[in-house]
């Protein structure tokens, strides 16, 4: 189907079903129950899951296929966000022109940075991209404030021209982003018993684009171009002596993945029209590296899993505080309750970084192939010996 083989079609369908049903899947616990804290099915976080999924999918096209480790990819995300917000400020609140512009601008940005950085490989390439991104961040935060609004981030105001739209709504507020009139923030709610499920227009737009991006990534992975990119990673010497020029291949991959990042940035701005300079900081670039490796670099689904994993932690674990802990363990005798809360306390709330750091280490130590490898191991446990044989002769990278 769609030019994919059976395995890939199945994968795409599974991902499609999961994303479309995310409002159900991510809200497994009834409202008001102790575990409702772990629900992630609210619009903002779901949007972040798919947007960072897109970002990571794009990053993986560069890193997973060619092996070039960019430490400055967040710059493209930031540039995409700025372009989109400028589009909202100047043109209209429709998200389509904003998203298109963000991809174009970040693509151009990627051409320039890629052209220079790809003259070097290995860690030298990483440092070059890092240097470009840090320069962008530092300048955006300070000297370029007229364009980026610096520390605060670029925001919409009531004075923006918006030539194809309106500067302010009738009741005097800033208009909201929309897709031909469908407001990105509008949410349908469904109540089932004690559960509340939220279906957000913005999320479904992002999800649709993510599926498209994912589909495109599968096609790239399976295409001759994708094979060439893997050849770049494998042996550039042989490539050159086979009459192939690695440079345009890597540059193309770099630009494609830069445009994916720009798309993610544009979508972020479309869901929440603000572009902050921190989006370009090296820690943000490092985050997408972590997502990709954590999920499984070079695999199709890995980066999406990694993105979900990290964003879930950032948004759910950071919000657990001692009060919540006490309410969970209130069934225990007082002394024991306090004891357990004391033990768990360093790992939640303000300690969520600690938990994340430990998990990184555990995953890298025990699952070199990332979460995907974890999944495969579990699957192998269930399927037994049969898979062990087939995995040896598989022709395509794991999904």
């Amino acid at each position, binding site marked *: 189907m769609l030019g994919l083989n059976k395995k890939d079609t199945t994968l795409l369908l599974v991902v499609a079903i999961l994303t479309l049903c995310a409002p159900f899947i991510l809200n497994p616990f009834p409202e008001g129950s102790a575990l409702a804290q772990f629900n992630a099915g609210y619009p903002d976080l779901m949007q972040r899951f798919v947007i960072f999924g897109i970002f990571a999918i794009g990053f993986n096209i560069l890193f997973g296929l060619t092996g070039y480790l960019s430490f400055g990819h967040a710059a493209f995300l930031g540039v995409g966000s700025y372009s989109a917000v400028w589009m909202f400020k100047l043109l209209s609140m429709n998200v389509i022109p904003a998203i298109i512009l963000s991809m174009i601008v970040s693509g151009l940005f990627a051409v320039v940075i890629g052209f220079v950085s790809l003259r070097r490989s290995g860690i030298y390439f990483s*440092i070059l991209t890092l240097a470009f991104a840090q*320069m962008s961040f530092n300048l955006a935060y300070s000297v370029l404030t007229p364009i980026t609004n610096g520390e605060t981030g670029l925001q919409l105001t009531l004075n923006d021209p918006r030539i194809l739209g309106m500067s302010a709504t009738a009741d005097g507020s800033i208009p909201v982003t929309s897709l031909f009139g469908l407001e990105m923030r509008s949410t349908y709610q469904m109540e089932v018993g004690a559960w509340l499920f939220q279906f957000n227009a913005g999320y479904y737009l992002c999800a649709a684009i993510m599926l498209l991006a994912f589909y495109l990534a599968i096609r790239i992975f399976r295409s001759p171009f994708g094979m060439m990119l893997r050849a770049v990673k494998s042996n550039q010497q042989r490539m050159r002596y086979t009459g192939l020029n690695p440079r345009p291949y890597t540059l193309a991959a770099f630009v494609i993945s830069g445009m994916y990042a720009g798309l993610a940035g544009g979508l972020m701005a479309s869901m929440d029209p603000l572009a902050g300079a921190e989006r370009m900081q090296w820690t943000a670039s490092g985050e997408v*590296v972590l997502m990709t490796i954590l999920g499984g670099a070079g695999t199709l689904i890995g980066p999406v899993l990694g993105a979900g994993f990290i964003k879930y932690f950032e948004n759910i674990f950071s919000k657990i505080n001692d009060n919540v802990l006490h309410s969970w363990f209130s069934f225990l005798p007082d002394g024991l309750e306090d004891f357990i809360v004391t033990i768990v306390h360093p790992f939640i709330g303000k300690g969520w970084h600690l938990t994340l750091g430990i998990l990184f280490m555990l995953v890298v130590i025990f699952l070199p192939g990332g979460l995907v490898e974890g999944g495969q191991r579990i699957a192998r446990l269930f399927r037994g010996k049969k898979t062990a044989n087939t995995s040896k002769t598989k022709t395509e990278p794991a999904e």
Partner: protein
Amino acid sequence: MDAIILQILNGLDKGSAYALIALGLTLIFGTLGVVNFAHGALFMIGSFCAVTLSKILNLSYEVVDPTKKDFLGNPLKVKMPYVESWFGTDMGAAIIDWSVPLAILFSIPVMICIGFIMERGLIKHFYKRPHADQILVTFGLAIVLQEIIKYFYGANPIPTPAPAVFKGSFDFGVILGFDPNTIIYPYWRLVYFGFAALIIGAVFAFLQFTTFGMVVRAGMADRETVGLLGINIDKRFTIMFGLAAAVAGLAGVMYAPINSPNYHMGMDFLVLSFVVVVVGGMGSLPGAVAAGFLLGVLESFASMNQIKSLIPGIDQIIIYLVAIIILLTRPRGLMGRKGVMED
């Protein structure tokens, strides 16, 4: 002229911190082939060795002073350090005053232990793994280490002053024939510069003149061959890691009075020190030191008003700009070898 001399001084001082951190990073990379993102955390732990020692020396019992009130209006409990009661007030105060230099002695065993534990417990399992995995696991470790420090010491910086003798600054201008107060430089920073030079010299001498060092240098040049000679590289690598950790730690201890230590200072230095190492050339010790000083001096020049008015924001980007220019003109940094970290 005087402004230039002043900025060169500044640059050398900044550079000595960069050089020390980059030196340790390169030692680890050159010998073990491991990209250690936790190196900044080692620097930070070094600083916190100074903090810890000063806290230990300041361990106190409380004496109630009824003439003063605390913030709730109760009689004030004045803290009396045990050190002062054991050694007498003057001697005790002097010991507390000298806590940072004393922390050098304290930090060396601590840092070497931490280095050994890190290498044996974690890093050793990653020699054969891809660099990306090494980066991820050491990055995770860096987060864990800094969060542990934050848990115990809080997020705010903790003042750790140098001994009172080193307060104030030295007037170079007078020696060089300028007016007083044109070129002044704090004593402690001069101490730091001298200390850094000493450590760098000691590391180089160690590698140059001891058999251990020779083997390590040979190992940096060609790991396989040295391994084939039947020399136990593993043990030496562990020792090298301990040494690199100690160098980072010492850089941190002495840095504590310059900027009050906080738990994320390692991350602040991490990116910078990587840039330094790469600009110097991966795996080259002299390259790392040279690049450290070079970037320190250039950074200082970029912060001069005259230059800032020519190119606005240059001090924001100078380090990265220099890195880009050097990497484009010299493919492997200043003194890098071919084929290192290029795949």
